[in-house]
């Protein structure tokens, strides 16, 4: 009955991250699907629009960003759903740890498994759209910040749609409008990087969105999950 050392917040976060990592290793398809989707969608554009690199380069920022947005939305649907069905979220709520903190850890794990690989893939897919590899740093910085904000925004949406059967479409409808600022500044940063200008200004704005998301989204997600579990 005597409690030994109670688990600290960092340990709890580490456990959540480890669990997500293990789960991803056991179900690689779930991690690979959004990445494959992103690759296929971007590869469609040279085929469907024009093979001329100059023209493709003009639409490349939009294509990369819309592709990345949709790919991360695909993954978002799984963010809390399985955990809600198998009772893991209930155990999180009752663990005595802050639910906000645990969900943030889970969102970080989600970003590491979807947003980060998408970011790393983007410059290579960009080559097919005429994006020079010299723009890789700018493209990746923009996408890293953008997908991070999206994961956070998506955690709210995923929490809110927990109680909804087949909530995937609703999740997109909730999350995509909120992602508009990310899309605008992200595509701008990418465009500047492609042209060879400094994307710093747009990146700062993306960074501020990422920080705003980090401070507010986990709280909102925790509230949404509590409602969703009832």
């Amino acid at each position, binding site marked *: *009955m*005597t*409690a*030994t*050392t*109670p*688990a600290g917040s960092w*340990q*709890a976060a580490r*456990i*959540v991250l*480890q*669990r997500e990592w*293990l*789960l991803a290793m*056991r*179900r690689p398809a779930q991690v690979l699907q959004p990445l494959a989707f992103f690759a296929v969608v971007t590869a469609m554009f040279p085929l469907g629009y024009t093979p001329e690199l100059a023209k493709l380069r003009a639409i490349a920022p939009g294509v990369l960003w819309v592709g990345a947005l949709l790919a991360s939305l695909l993954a978002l649907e799984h963010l809390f759903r*399985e955990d809600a069905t*198998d*009772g*893991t979220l*209930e*155990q*999180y*709520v*009752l*663990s*005595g*740890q*802050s639910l906000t903190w*645990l969900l943030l850890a889970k969102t970080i794990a989600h970003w590491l498994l979807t947003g980060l690989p998408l970011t790393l893939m983007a410059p290579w897919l960009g080559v097919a759209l005429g994006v020079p590899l010299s723009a890789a740093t700018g493209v990746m910085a923009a996408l890293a910040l953008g997908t991070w904000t999206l994961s956070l925004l998506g955690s709210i949406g995923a929490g809110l749609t927990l109680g909804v059967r087949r909530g995937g479409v609703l999740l997109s409808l909730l999350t995509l409008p909120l992602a508009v600022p990310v899309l605008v500044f992200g595509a701008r940063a990418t465009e500047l990087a492609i042209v060879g200008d400094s994307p710093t200004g747009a990146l700062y704005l993306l960074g501020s969105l990422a920080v705003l998301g980090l401070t507010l989204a986990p709280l909102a997600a925790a509230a949404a999950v509590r409602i969703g*579990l*009832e």
Partner: protein
Amino acid sequence: MVVLLGLLLAAPVAELVDATDLKSVGRKAVPVRFRPGAPWFCMSALVVNNLSVYRGERAILCRVSFELAAGRALVITGPNGAGKTTLLRTLCGLVEPEEGELHWRSERRSFRDAEYHVDLAYLGHEAPLKMDLTGRENLRGLVGLRRDVAPERVDAALGEMQAGSFADRAVRTLSAGQRRRIAFAALGLMGATLWVLDEPVTNLDRAGEALVQTLLSRHLATGGLLLAATHQPLGLDPACCDSLVLAGAVP
């Protein structure tokens, strides 16, 4: 000893909801007032007063009250749909009650108080396990969120539930009873004082039931509290069991 007060009483209900309201919800309130057989000097660790839960217009629980002292079990019975699961989930803070207050260790608390949650462990209908992880990995995750547990203690807990032989297989490949055994091994390691169990012995075979019975008895003997909703007898010592009957919908 069994104390049972699941009678329909119009008078206390009238304080709160007038009779027409009750009629309109098509359901009569069942106030359950109940004192366990603990000696007077033994403070009840858990006191729940006037707990009411509504789903829209429908009353799921109406003014349920009970007390439970350390070392005692409250066995909640009642027909399907009587609100047993809702009662347990409300006590865990998973469902927001319309009214009702909770005293835990003689302090007034919210049902969502983190300190209260540390003392509480809940097992629902389904074992809260990840299908793709092994039993041992699941156990480490569930318990690790609450406290550090040495691997030897994990082994001991699994051995006690006779789950050692299948603890390293993916939960997906285990039977429902085997999953429950893993969940109970986790429950024993969580170090919570108040166990809230929903149908604890479902899916378990005879041997499993006996193991759970031992686990629960030991929990009570060491001063733990147990709330269990069940249709099947748990086989606990009747001297430390109280009973709460939810009458449910009364036509």
